[in-house]
């Protein structure tokens, strides 16, 4: 029976490989996203087992000095990017809450495979009360392990399934990073001389697409003639490939490189070629002082402190947590004063005020996709229905090279 099942499963897998997956996925999600374009604030409907934010959970409260916190990361701080920055958040949290070093257990370089489930179980067995998993591909393993350990809170960054699973101990968190990307795009739009931006991004799905859309819209807001090329690395953390893709974009004429991948390789490649760069996750000026203009950055410590405090009191963590520029969860790093174009700081401040006013957001219509279809009507603002981004139209002026 098992053999038969596994054979069937592998057959299904093979078939799905053969089918032209990206096309069907794109078609399916298009209709979905169209339905979601509404101005109303999303309302959370709780499933039977889920506990509304702030209500007491079934877990036992734990003293702050006894709590153990686990982290599962896809790479390690040497990426000087995503994991580095998330780890800075961890350190800041530990300082703020006055935690000891031995209360935090980090699992670095965990691949998005069954090894993730093993790492999660190890953390659970080591007595962690709350576990953070920080990479998109960890989500299924988080769900699997969370079902086995109902007394442990599991928080997963960038995921989308906490709302639809009825496990009360799984939570998603992310933020409106597109707002920060919009601001960083302004620096790129003012700096470019060839009017061609290049963008190194990881995977062809909504988190990445909404990211480069926002970056491009920021650039276009100050430079109407600007165009952008996008290339995928198909990996979250592969510095070799990231450098090669950045080089290929520069070779195609791009003179500002934006990025949505974990390492500083695009920044150093831009510097070697004498062009400019806008980073992600952390201030990359140190890695590329002559190229890095600014970066869109996260402050993860806010969520970590919030979630750990709730675990201490044994009250429910929000199922789906998302904050943006207004709460400083996302922002841009200090501008590189030596190389930014004149007027960059002023233009960014103006856009920041506009976003903070609450009346305008990045995805305000009219917006067209790169086939000329209108995707957001004039006067309408697309609001993300949950923390994980869902906006996945490739906008006019952007060319994806694949």
């Amino acid at each position, binding site marked *: 029976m098992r053999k038969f099942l596994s054979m069937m499963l592998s057959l299904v897998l093979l078939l799905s490989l053969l089918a032209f997956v990206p096309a069907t996925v794109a078609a399916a999600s298009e209709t979905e996203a169209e339905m979601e374009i509404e101005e109303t604030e999303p309302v959370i409907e709780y499933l039977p087992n889920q506990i509304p934010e702030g209500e007491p959970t079934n877990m036992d409260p734990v003293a702050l000095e006894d709590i153990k916190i686990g982290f599962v990361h896809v790479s*390690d701080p040497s990426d000087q990017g995503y994991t580095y920055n998330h780890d800075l958040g961890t350190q800041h949290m530990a300082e703020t809450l006055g935690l000891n070093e031995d209360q935090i257990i980090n699992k*670095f370089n965990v691949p998005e495979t069954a090894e993730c489930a093993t790492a999660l179980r190890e953390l659970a067995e080591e007595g962690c009360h709350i576990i953070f998993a920080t990479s998109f591909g960890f989500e299924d393993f988080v769900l699997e392990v969370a079902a086995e350990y109902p007394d442990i809170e599991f928080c997963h960054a960038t995921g989308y399934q906490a709302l639809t699973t009825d496990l009360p101990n799984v939570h998603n968190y992310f933020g409106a990073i597109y707002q920060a990307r919009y601001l960083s795009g302004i620096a790129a739009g003012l700096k470019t001389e060839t009017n061609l931006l290049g963008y190194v991004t990881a995977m062809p799905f909504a988190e990445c697409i909404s990211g480069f859309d926002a970056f491009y819209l920021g650039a276009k807001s100050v430079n109407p003639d600007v165009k952008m090329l996008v290339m995928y690395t198909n990996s979250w953390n*592969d510095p*070799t490939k990231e450098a090669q*893709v950045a080089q290929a974009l520069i070779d195609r004429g791009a003179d500002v490189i934006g990025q949505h991948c974990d390492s500083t*390789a695009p920044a150093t490649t831009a510097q070697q070629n004498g062009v400019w760069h806008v980073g992600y996750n952390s201030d990359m000026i140190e890695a590329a002082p002559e190229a890095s203009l600014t970066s869109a950055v996260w402050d993860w410590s806010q969520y970590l402190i919030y979630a750990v405090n709730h675990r201490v009191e044994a009250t429910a963590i929000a199922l789906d947590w998302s904050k943006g520029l207004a709460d400083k969860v996302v922002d841009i790093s200090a501008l590189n004063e030596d190389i930014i174009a004149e007027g960059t700081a002023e233009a960014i401040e103006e856009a920041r005020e506009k976003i903070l006013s609450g009346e305008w957001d990045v995805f305000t219509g009219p917006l067209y996709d790169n086939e000329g279809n209108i995707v957001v009507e004039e006067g309408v603002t697309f609001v993300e229905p949950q923390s994980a981004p869902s906006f996945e139209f490739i906008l006019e002026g952007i060319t994806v090279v694949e």
Partner: protein
Amino acid sequence: MDNFVKFINAAVLAGTPVLLGTLGEILTEKSGNLNLGVEGMMFMGAISGLAGAWFAEQWFNWSGVPAALIALLISFVAGAFGALMYAFLTVTLRANQNVTGLTLAIFGTGFGNFFGELLGKRAGGFVTVTAHTKDAFANLNFGPLSKIPVIGRLFFSYNWLVYFAVIVAIALHLFLKHTRRGLNLRSVGESPATADAAGINVNLYKYLATIIGGGICGIGGMYMTMVTTGGIWVHNTIRGYGWLAVALVIFATWSPARALYCGLIFGGLMMLRLYLPIPGVPQQIYDMLPYVATILVLIGMSIRQSKEYAQPKSSGLNYFREER
């Protein structure tokens, strides 16, 4: 034309670490040792080279060229050390070559990642060499030569390790084809019993070729940390380049001279997606190309049954004088 030059530049940079691994493995296999541990030796060279440069900066305050030379030396020693273990196991103890090689690949991967993270902890987060040392691995400027249109950019625009790899390839070719010792080595790889009867010290040749070959693989690994990732230790830096090198040995049909342009072809196939994308063809298809090319060469070789393009005959077999 411009795009073509850029494509070739990218292909050369991507092909060089694989070429170095291949040259090391060709030398090894010429002695009749099929060392599948290239991936492991490249990992050992990668972390040791970076660690060497980093400690040279920390302890002796050497940066730039001296640190680069230390990286070269230490990565060679580390790769050679991995190969020494292999040679001791297979030549002296006569362990199975395939199993030993695979073990070395796994061992080296762990060695690299373990010490990479240890070094990162010691350095407080992550290891990175100074900008001065990074510059020592930047593309060279040959002055007027680099300025010749097209030719300058095609031939005189790389970092020193690229030229080093080319010199190693030519030197290996000359050694194997035009020296008495090269002939001896080839005969050890083809038929160790015959070589033994002719008074050649089979074990000495096997040891030396394997160890030096491993050292060259180690330098290939050092290229990955010092050039490709810019002097930073990244978890799993080598990620499969060692196996590509083993495939390239077959693709180049065990000739260091052919490895030169076959390495360029391999680099080109790896870069193809970025420079000549065909809409609708997924990246995974492009990633298969070097291996597909290798399979095609294997098929072609087995059809032609050529003696010149074949693997050294005793490759993979241990030699035991008393066993006749």
